[in-house]
C-alpha cells in the first residue's frame, strides 16, 4: 500500500544576487510503510530540500505531496495531523535539541501536542520511549549537554517516535557521530522501522550505509533524479555516469585490495 507520494515536485529558491536556483526539478517517488528509501547525492543536490518540503518547513513551488492519497493541508489541525504522521530526525544532535530544556521536555512536548496519551500516562510513555531507544530512564532529567552525541541522537529519535508517526525522515542522522557508534544508531533505526512498520526516508551522502540500510535508492544530482532502483542495482550496477562516478569516488577497500592482490598475482 502506498503511503507517501512525492509527485513531480519542483522547488525554486530566489537567491539575492544569484537569481533563481532550482533546488528540486520535477522529483517524484513513492514511499510505502515498512520500506526504506535511501536518497543519495552530494551537498547541493537537493536532498535536504526534500526533507524540508516533507516536513513543511518549505513549500513546494509546484507539484504535490500526498499522504495516504490526500494532499498536505496548508494549515490548521489538518497540517498538525499530517505532521504527527511524519517526523524528522535531524543531522546534528548537538543542534537539534534545545540546550535549555531537559530530555523529558523534548519527548513530552509531542506527546502533549498531539495528545498521544492521557496526561497521567505521560511519565510512563516517556519511560517507554526512552527504553525503545535504549536509554536509561535517568536520562529523562538530563539536559542535552550532559549526554554524548550518540545518546542525543537517540533522544532525537525518541522525540520523533513520540507522536507515533508512520513515516520517519532521517537527514544524515549519523554523519556527525563517532564512527564506532554510527552503526548502533542506524541499526536502532532499522529495528524500529521493522518493528513499527515505519516508512523511512534515509538521506545520506554515504553510498555504503545507503546500500546497507535501504531497500531502494534514489540518486539525486542538481535537483534531478538521475537514477533509481533497488539498493544493490544502483550501487553495484550503476547505469548513470554520475552514479558511476560517485561509486568510483567512494572508498571501497575491499575492491581496492582485491585489485592489488590481482595485480601482484598477475605479476608473479
Amino acid at each position: 500500500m502506498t503511503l507517501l507520494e512525492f509527485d513531480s515536485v519542483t522547488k525554486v529558491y530566489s537567491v539575492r544576487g544569484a537569481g533563481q536556483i532550482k533546488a528540486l526539478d520535477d522529483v517524484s517517488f513513492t514511499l510505502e510503510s515498512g520500506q526504506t528509501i535511501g536518497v543519495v547525492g552530494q551537498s547541493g543536490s537537493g536532498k535536504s530540500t526534500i526533507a524540508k518540503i516533507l516536513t513543511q518547513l518549505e513549500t513546494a513551488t509546484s507539484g504535490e505531496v500526498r499522504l495516504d492519497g490526500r494532499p498536505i493541508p496548508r494549515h490548521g489541525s489538518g497540517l498538525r495531523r499530517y505532521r504527527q504522521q511524519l517526523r524528522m530526525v535531524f543531522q546534528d544532535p548537538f543542534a537539534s535539541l534545545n540546550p535549555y530544556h531537559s530530555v523529558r521536555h523534548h519527548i513530552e512536548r509531542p506527546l502533549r501536542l498531539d495528545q498521544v496519551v492521557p496526561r497521567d500516562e505521560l511519565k510512563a510513555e516517556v519511560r517507554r520511549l526512552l527504553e525503545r531507544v535504549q536509554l536509561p530512564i535517568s536520562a529523562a532529567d538530563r539536559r542535552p549537554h550532559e549526554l554524548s552525541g550518540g545518546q542525543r541522537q537517540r533522544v532525537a529519535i525518541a522525540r520523533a517516535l513520540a507522536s507515533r508517526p508512520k513515516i520517519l525522515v532521517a537527514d544524515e542522522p549519523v554523519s556527525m557521530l563517532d564512527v564506532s557508534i554510527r552503526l548502533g544508531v542506524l541499526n536502532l533505526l532499522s529495528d524500529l522501522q521493522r518493528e513499527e512498520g515505519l516508512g523511512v526516508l534515509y538521506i545520506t551522502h554515504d553510498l555504503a550505509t545507503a546500500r546497507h540500510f535501504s531497500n531502494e535508492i534514489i540518486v539525486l544530482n542538481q535537483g534531478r533524479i538521475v537514477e533509481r532502483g533497488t539498493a544493490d542495482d544502483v550501487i553495484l550496477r550503476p547505469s548513470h555516469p554520475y552514479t558511476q562516478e560517485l561509486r568510483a569516488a567512494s572508498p571501497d577497500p575491499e575492491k581496492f585490495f582485491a585489485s592489488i592482490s590481482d595485480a601482484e598475482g598477475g605479476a608473479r
Partner: protein
Amino acid sequence: MSNALLSVQNFSVIYDVDPPVQAVTKIDFELRRGEILGLAGESGCGKTTLAYGIQRLLKAPAVITSGSVVFHDASGDDIDISGLGVEDMRQFRWDKISMVFQGAMNALNPVATIGSQLEDVFEVHRPNMSKAQRREAVVELLDIVKVGGQRRRSFPHELSGGMRQRVMIAMALALRPQLMVMDEPTTALDVLVQREILRQISDLRDEFGFSVIFITHDLPLLLEISDRIAIMREGEIVELATAERIWNNPQDEYTKKLLSSFPRLTGEKGLVKR
C-alpha cells in the same frame, strides 16, 4: 636508518589543567621518507594532539612531558624538535614540515587575497626573494594545484570548498617541505571533490617526494591512500602496520571493531568482514 624522516620516541603530551589530562602516552614510531602514514581513531583519541604535538603546534595548557622527536633533514642534519628555541622553531616550521588543515573554510584569512597569503610564506622564510620572484612562485604553485595563477587576486570567499583546499595544499607545498601533516583535509568536502584532492595529494607526493601524516576517522579512505596506518585509541597507538596488513590481518581488537563499523560498499551485503 637513512630512509627515516622522523623518529618519535616515548612521546607524551598532557593538558595541564586541573586535573591534568593525559592526551598522548608514550608514543613510539618512525616515519619513513616519502611514505604516507595514516593516523586513524575516533574523536578524542589523541590523533590530532599527536600530529600537532610533534611539531609543537599545541598551545598551552598542552605540555610535552616526555620523549624526543628527531627530524632527519635531507641535508643529513638531525634536528631535535623538542630542543628548538622559539625563533628556531618558527624558522623550522613550514620550511621542513607544513600542514593542511581541516576546514579550508576557516583556515584562510578571509580579508586577504589568497595570493598575498601564499606570498606571506616566502616573505617570512625566503627574505631574499624579490617581489616579482614571489609572485612568480605563487602563480606557479596555484598552477600546480590546478587552481590557476590568475586566481591569486581572489579572496577565500570567492572560491569553492574544493578550491580553497587546493590553495591550502599549494601553501603547504610552497617551501617544498619534507613532511606534510594533513588534518582531515577532505572531511568537509563532497565525495567527488574529495577523490580529486586525494588524487592530487598522491600525485604531488610522487612528484616532490615528501612524506605525509594523514589524520582522519574515515578508515576505508585511509586504507586506500596510506602506505602504513597507525590506529590510535585513548592516547596510544594500538596497532601500526601496512594498510594491507591492517585490512587483511588486523591484530588488535579495537582495529577489528573499527573495521567492522563500516558497511561494505560492494560485495556481499552486510558489514565489512569480522
